[in-house]
């Protein structure tokens, strides 16, 4: 495990999903979607409800099987792997609705994030969990059952659990949902520092356009299960077709 040697450019993107098709009982949710996320790159997924954003994340993480298409990590096919083997290949996701283990303490929940990596010595695991708790400001509640925390703090536990193993690829399904503006700021900060520390590739969905625009290097806009546009945040925000399909209320000024 661990990140590739610094300075070496990986020939293949960290994550590619190519020609992904998914049909549910006659409804085509994804109709041949291609996305690529480079190492250390953040790709934001935008699109109206029902455009296929969550389905795409589900196909990549193995929650649903696509009808066609390939999923690759570092150029290696993982589309046939089970969910746990994808996790052990360095692909970790978060959920729109929290999927924390309510019976476990905060620290134990974060430790679950390390189960994907066998063979780490106990002391190292402890240190990683401790650092992760400190990063998210959760030290004081580490021994509490996670169910006793307020929503915002639970959301931070979920982020900590996803980041603790320093995944190669991180899928974030609405990480900002239900957060206040100061909490969203903390979230952005945590994701930025994770990216600079172990240059993980991120694929992110969120309804908070400011959050996505502020964090992403590139944006892909989905519409009716197809890629409508792909470009930098500035290009996307200025694209008339995107505005008409989705960004009806484009922010006056892009946050920097």
């Amino acid at each position: 495990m661990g990140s590739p040697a610094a300075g070496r450019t990986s020939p293949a993107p960290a994550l590619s999903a190519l020609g992904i098709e998914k049909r549910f009982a006659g409804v085509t949710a994804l109709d041949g979607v291609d996305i690529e996320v480079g190492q250390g790159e953040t790709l934001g997924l935008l699109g109206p409800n029902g455009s296929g954003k969550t389905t795409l994340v589900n196909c990549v993480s193995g929650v649903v099987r696509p009808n066609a298409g390939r999923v690759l990590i570092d150029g290696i096919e993982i589309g046939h792997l089970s969910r746990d083997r994808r996790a052990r290949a360095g692909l970790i996701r978060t959920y729109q609705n929290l999927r924390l283990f309510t019976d476990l303490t905060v620290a134990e929940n974060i430790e679950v994030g390390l189960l994907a990596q066998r063979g780490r010595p106990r002391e190292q695991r402890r240190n990683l969990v401790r650092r992760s708790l400190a990063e998210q400001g959760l030290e004081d509640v580490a021994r509490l059952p996670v169910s006793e925390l307020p929503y915002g703090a639970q959301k931070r536990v979920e982020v900590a659990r996803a980041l603790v193993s320093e995944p190669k690829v991180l899928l974030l399904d609405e990480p900002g949902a239900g957060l206040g503006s100061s909490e969203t700021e903390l979230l952005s900060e945590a994701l930025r520092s994770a990216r600079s520390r172990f240059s993980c590739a991120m694929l992110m969905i969120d309804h908070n356009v400011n959050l996505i625009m502020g964090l992403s290097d590139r944006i892909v806009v989905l519409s009716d299960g197809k890629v409508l546009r792909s470009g930098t945040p500035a290009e996307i925000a200025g694209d008339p077709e995107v505005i008409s399909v989705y960004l009806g209320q484009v922010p006056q000024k892009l946050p920097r």
Partner: protein
Amino acid sequence: MMVASLQVIVDGLSIGSTYALLALGLSLVFSVMGFVNFAYGSLIVWAGYAIAVTDSVGAPYALTILVMVVFTVVLSIAMGRFAFRPFITAPPATLLLTSFGVALALQAVAIFVFGEAPRHVPTPPVLIESVSVGGVRISLLQILALGLSVIVLVALNLLIQRTTFGIEIRAAAEDSKAAQLMGVRPPKVLLVVFAISGVVAAVVAFVWFARIGTVDPRADLTPTLKAFIAVVLGGLGTIRGPVIGGLLLGLFESVLASFLTTNLLAFQSAFAFGLVILVLILRPQGVAGRVVELAK
């Protein structure tokens, strides 16, 4: 009177601690897989045969117990691997029916191989001889039963609460799909849980057959039922639930045995089930359990 009631408590705790272990083995599988394993008693029966067969070839008692422990754990893992793992994603009802199938199959094989007649399971006399401590009669086996139960309980609690394995088991028990996305392998967790449950069954079998002295192919129902009653009394979803349930059942039986007249004693099980019905009506989650949600 004082001594008599002390005797009832000692007897009740000793048999109750065995029931507690039985219930623990059953509820362990339940909490992870969401089904009651009705083949659990078959493990106990086959453990009894393991002792009997090893003894019949002239092995010393300690060796027969060692062989029994290894055999029971292997049988439990095999049960998990071949009977239950193929249905790991199936609804709990499928697994429940599977467990009935396994119980029937293991019983049929036992009848075929060993016949219907009970077989003698040896016990060193030193284990069952009672000594009098201040008027209360107690055997080495009773002390062993209590001691072993405490050891198993403490070990199990440490394993579940303090180790990475424990975190893995608890995570898989609560949300197997989410756990899988974090790299947990549910099939592996299943095998580990069956292995642990096999160790618990072996400890129970040692105490059980030392007390009873015989094994027959249809003897699996009693341990399964005792475990089931204890689990219902104490409640699921915690370690202390089955333990409290087991001790309660032991004490209840011990009290009944000392107060009931001989002709009423035949209805001892009926009284136990009456108690179960009462608990289910008044406190469905058990005395010390909590509300357990079955997998959706």
